[in-house]
């Protein structure tokens, strides 16, 4: 494994993008309406592009994606959560893209190693956030059923939102400020969508920062098994 020193941050950000892209890719052929097939794939492709740049900063992109074990992945638990219904997917998008936009805007404004990538990615992510907001409004303030599904999704994923602000070594931002901005932004969208801001805990009893430390949820192992199987079946082959 060729993980260069000081690549913790590239892995954390890269794994977030890689794993969320994979989850969105699972929607292919199953979206609620054809137009959303195109939209979800666009977002997945943007994220995959980001992941490839970031992982390449840490080593070989394919070795890192396909040959690491579950405990070596540094992504947030939020992004590995299964798609669930469209409300869960949109909620996951809302929580993550709001975070990613705030974080990348900070990184783009700085002069660190991630500034060039962030400057480009923040435009993509602005679109992801917009997509998530538009759908949050429509599902939250649509029908009684969509409201109920959206409320359940917001609550179910709320417990994975604190780990986003667990400081990542090598990412030089003010995490406290980031968290405050995130809470304000997400709360405002939820309220416009006639949804209550969840009141439950924003992390599990032992999970704060867990994904960043290589502790994941059970569905993630199965996701990786599927993703890595073919590559691992042909050691050393090129594709």
């Amino acid at each position, binding site marked *: 494994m060729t993980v260069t020193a000081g690549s913790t941050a590239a892995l954390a950000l890269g794994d977030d993008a890689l794993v969320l892209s994979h989850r969105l890719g699972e929607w292919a052929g199953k979206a609620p*309406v054809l*137009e959303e097939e*195109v*939209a979800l794939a*666009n977002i997945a*492709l*943007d994220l995959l*592009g980001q992941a490839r740049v970031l992982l390449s900063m840490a080593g070989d992109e394919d070795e890192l994606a396909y040959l690491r074990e579950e405990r070596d992945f540094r992504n947030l638990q939020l992004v590995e959560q299964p798609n669930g219904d469209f409300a869960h997917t949109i909620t996951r998008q809302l929580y993550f893209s709001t975070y990613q936009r705030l974080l990348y805007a900070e990184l783009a404004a700085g002069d660190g190693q991630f500034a060039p990538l962030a400057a*480009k990615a923040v*435009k*993509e992510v*602005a*679109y992801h956030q*917009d*997509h998530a907001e*538009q759908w949050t409004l*429509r599902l939250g303030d649509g029908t009684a059923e969509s409201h109920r599904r959206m409320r359940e999704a917001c609550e179910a994923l709320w417990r994975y939102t604190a780990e986003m602000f667990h400081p990542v070594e090598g990412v030089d931002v003010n995490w406290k400020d980031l968290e405050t901005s995130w809470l304000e932004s997400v709360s405002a969208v939820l309220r416009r969508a006639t949804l209550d801001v969840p009141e439950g805990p924003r992390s599990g009893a032992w999970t704060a920062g867990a994904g960043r430390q290589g502790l994941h949820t059970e569905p993630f192992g199965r996701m990786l098994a599927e993703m890595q199987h073919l590559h691992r079946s042909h050691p050393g082959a090129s594709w």
Partner: protein
Amino acid sequence: MTTNDWPLWEVFVRSRRGLSHTHAGSLHAPDAELALRNARDLYTRRGEGVSIWVVPSTAITASSPDEKDPFFEPAADKPYRHPTFYDIPEGVKHL
């Protein structure tokens, strides 16, 4: 119209500055905001546009110029969407 039958929108794309919007096709969307976003995803995936209008039967809605970056730039870095991205051995024809 049934409750889930989204209306049809006509899409006009300006391919670059200096040219007028031209009709690109149509799509379904519940409202103008989503129609614009769907049009962006559908008709400008390969960087074919810098501005979009979507037109229901009665109204015209245009994307605002300041949305240009997040709307259109991401399409510029996906070279694998273009056939020239692929290396094909010399002499292989009709591909």
